[in-house]
């Protein structure tokens, strides 16, 4: 199955899930009024039909299409691997921020990212410190939003004005 077919399948299943959920909710919650369920049912049903038809057409078309040359497939795989690694970096930042807060995680994450891409310590630390200060000034001082400080107890945050 072509990769784009998987995405279509995802939309198709999501739409079915949306329909199913509304039906189930109706059973579990008798006060799930007409107004609450009508439009989600209509929209999800239409989406199911369109997604199903598109999926069917794409699967049928996929059987008659020629395979791409090996070099194209390799390049695409490398590109997707890079996308996955980039996504992993972003997730890593979010997890780090959850644990130790945005400011410290910014300092550590940017430094780690630039160091793994062969930049020097001074440049990496300068950029990460600059970004950290930018976040603090803009969010804490200008907008008055105290940036999230993480679930782990970090004494450094108590020294911030």
């Amino acid at each position, binding site marked *: 199955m072509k*990769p*784009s077919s998987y*995405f279509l399948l*995802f*939309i198709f299943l*999501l*739409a079915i899930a*949306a329909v199913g*959920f*509304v039906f189930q*909710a109706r059973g579990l*919650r008798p*006060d*799930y*009024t007409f*107004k*609450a369920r009508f*439009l*989600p049912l209509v*929209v*999800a049903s*239409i*989406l199911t039909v*369109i*997604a199903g*038809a*598109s999926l069917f057409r794409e699967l049928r078309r996929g059987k008659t299409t020629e395979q791409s040359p090996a070099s194209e497939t390799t390049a695409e795989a490398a*590109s997707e691997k*890079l*996308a996955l690694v*980039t*996504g992993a*970096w*972003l*997730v890593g*930042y*979010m997890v780090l*921020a*959850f644990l130790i807060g*945005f400011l410290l995680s*910014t300092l550590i*994450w*940017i430094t780690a*990212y*630039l160091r793994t*891409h062969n*930049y020097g310590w001074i440049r990496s630390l300068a*950029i*990460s410190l600059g*970004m950290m200060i930018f*976040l603090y000034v*803009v*969010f804490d001082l200008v*907008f008055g*939003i105290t*940036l*999230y400080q993480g679930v782990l107890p970090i004494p450094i945050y108590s020294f911030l004005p």
Partner: protein
Amino acid sequence: MDVWQGLIHGFLPLLNPFNLLLLIPLMIWGMIVGFVPGIGIMVAWVLLMPFLAQMKVETALVCLIGCGGGAGFAGAICAILIGIPGEDTNVATIPDGYPMTKKGQAGRAIGAMCTGSIAAGLFSTLMAILLIPVVMWIVKFCGIPEQCAMILVGVSFVGVIGGRSPAKGLMCGLLGFLLGFVGYQENSGVARYIFGDAFLYGGVSVLTVIMGLWAVPAVIDLIKTGGIIQAGYDIPRGKVLWQQMLEGGKDVLRHWAVWLRSVIIGFIIGVIPALGANTAIWMAYGQAAKTSKHPELFGTGMVEGVIAPESARSAVWAGAALTTLSFGIPGSAGMVIILAAFIMLGITPGPTMLFEHTDLCFLLYWTHIATMTVGLIMCLLAMRLMMRIVSLKVDYLFPIIGILVTVGAWAYSQNMQELVVLLVLGTMGYLMRKFGYPAAATLLGFVLCKIFERTFYVSLDTFGPVFLLRPIVLVLLALVVYVIFSGPLTVGMRKLLRRA
């Protein structure tokens, strides 16, 4: 508030020193991002959203429009000097703009682009301002049922946003609707699709949707592109540059007919929902080539080939803004972002906006005029600096943008669960971009969902199902049917005729 009061009150926020102080750095921000290929004005706006949410409405609108003011010029300068468009609406400038740079006429191309753009922007903005009273008169005949039908028209146009595949556009629009159903339903108070999580009771935030569908895929694509953007040919300096730019300005006067046709094309295309600037720039380029004495020379460095698309691109904004403000139907993908920003700021665009927020409508246009003028001057003065920006490595851009996206999404609700939603939507946004599904359609569906549901049930409660038989509603519903089914029907008829 009447039109004259709105016209005057709409200008006043521009005289506020605080708004002016914010305007300049935001225009610089728009210019920088607009000049970096592959990022563009959409991401500049998206990254600005978390900050806008904390501001007063007038200040937020000035910042939003100001950011876009310089970006358009910056993207065009990038297209002319480097041969890479700052964003997709600058693509039609490359065939003739870049060859002009190669011939040592970069200044002339930029002068023609700047003069044509700013004149087009001013002219089209004045046209839109003059049309606002006319539109307000038309809108008086529109009640809640007509508003509901208009939203349906806007939603049906998502199929057009899908480009070659209306099915993709429709699917994305409906997906946006499903996203919009998450949270409590206004008319009944029932919470839908929250799976027992109180965080989702208020629904998915529009900011997270925008960040997830645009910013995350843009950041990932930036890394996939990698390296640095190439430098172009050397541009003239000092007196030579200014002389060339003056010559380019005179070219617009010489080719005033091309300019005027391009402005009209851009304005009309902008008014029609979902067609967008891409349609306008190529139509304008095509008419310039067709009406030229030397059409065979287009693509080799003809100055009309720069004037036409850039004038059309500049005129699209005013037309698209008119449709967005008047009917709540975005005229382009960029207007979808502006629509989302309105909703985030607590303003519901649509027919009532013209009457309840007349001053804000005019503020948008006044700000557009002001920022275009100032942005133009800033771009011209900072051209060499902007050339350096494109030599920035993506390894610097990625962490900065990635952090801004993450913190920005969190700042809206100050809840870490927002990041989980961001991840889910970011993954979806990346896959949508990869497989050619239009994110603008999803955002449009999401933004219009709650408004549509509210007007639908109010119409049903007030008039009963008979509201569907009101004359204007019937006309609009017929338009919806035509928009959705005309494409497949045309294709089907052609197949039948071929077989016959």
